[in-house]
């Protein structure tokens, strides 16, 4: 149930558990800049349920994925706004 898996966040390996949402995994890893807003401020999840789009990140090279709506998979590559 708490099987450990590895994902890659902005090029660094992060250990998380299977079944965790990408948003929760990134928050636990201390990520605050899921995206950078037009005005240059960092943004992170607000609604947690796919409405606000504040948590959007690039997952396996597909941009604008809502981190709260995806579940981590082994080897998943996530690029946040901090890496841009």
């Amino acid at each position, binding site marked *: 149930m708490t099987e450990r898996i590895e994902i890659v966040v902005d090029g660094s390996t992060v250990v998380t*558990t299977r079944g965790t*949402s990408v948003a929760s995994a990134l928050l636990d890893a201390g990520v605050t800049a899921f995206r950078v807003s037009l005005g240059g401020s960092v943004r992170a999840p*607000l*609604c947690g349920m796919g409405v*606000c789009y504040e948590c959007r990140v690039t997952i396996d090279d597909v941009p604008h994925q809502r981190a*709260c709506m995806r579940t981590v998979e082994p080897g998943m590559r996530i690029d946040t706004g901090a890496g841009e």
Partner: protein
Amino acid sequence: MTATHACDVLVVGAGPAGIAAAANAAECGARVVVVDEAAAPGGQIWRSSSHTPPPRAARRWLRRLRDSGAAVESRAGVVDVERRGDGFHALIEREHERVLMNARAIVLATGARERFLPFPGWTLPNVFGIGGAQALLKSGMTVRGKRVVIAGSGPLLLPVAASLSHAGARVVLVAEQAPAGRVMRFAAALWRRPFTALQAARLRAAFMRTPYVFGTWIAAADGDERLTSVEVVDADGGRRRLACDVLCAAFGLVPNVEVARLLGCELLDGFVRVDGQQATSSASVYCAGEPTGIGGVDLALVEGAIAGRAAAGHSPAPADVRRRNRVRRAARELDAAFALRPELRSLADESTIVCRCEDVRLGQLDPSWTTRQAKLYTRAGMGACQGRICGAALECVRSWPPDTVRPPLRPARVATLLPE
């Protein structure tokens, strides 16, 4: 070329209302398809993951849904839907795939989202909606040792405080904006329903060392790259600052009525108007759950059952109708107890960002404008969330009614929008 699928009843949303509608319609012999954006059916209240198994009531309904033969399309959202012939034609994006669906009837079980009212600092990381925090917790977020402030309104404050402290968070304060007297009268009415009262007492016991105050609300959140403190204010003007790592804000729920509005369903006070069979003003379109009035899981289930049967051409079970009317009355009492105080409409100052997608500040929005003018002049409401957050906020802050709904209903890939 994309194949067009066909069904008798298309159910939009797989929370309790959608699950009950789909199962009931399929049990009546209809071919049913349910589309839902999440990875698995359950909606927000029955959200589950390997970290949080679904509750017993949910397991029973999920089993019934599976046994009914209704097809569930997860991670699928309606991008556009229109009336075609004597039915409907829907454009759906499932993961990254374009799906076309013809249906003879539609049940809208689109649920609700949280209302967010802007206040200084609300764009900081680690400021969440209370339902959002609960969703993240259920999907594996760790809160052990974190200092949490919960501020806002409604019956979710206590259960979320309880689940956060159970997960190891230190809940510093639970602040309910409604005056104590109003909530107490409501709570007194709850004692007539022993089970609910027992639940409330258990929740209270779970975080007894946490102060639970009334007539107190959020004034501002502070921090640099992330939240470090909040300021709360009470009805006597008393202000105090609390150091914290997480803020859960709760300003009630907003029904998701975008698909209903696109289909021309009549609204009343922001909710979809339905008749005794959950039929909307738009022929062959039914609606159940929060979009018809915020009422919680019990009301959603019974409305869903009635809507599902009606969409499949069957009349409702008399016991369901009685139950719906009873639960609806209870929901209205709850709504009145937690009505938002007018001070919450003016928490934002001129420099507070209102539209988070386009970084539009309140001071940029001339009060004499309409929603449409605000869009044209500042792009407020034109970003990725398509006004779902700032639109509901500006309805409160500026008394601006929502703008017309147009497809695409949500951001979609170009390949989804363009036929091959």
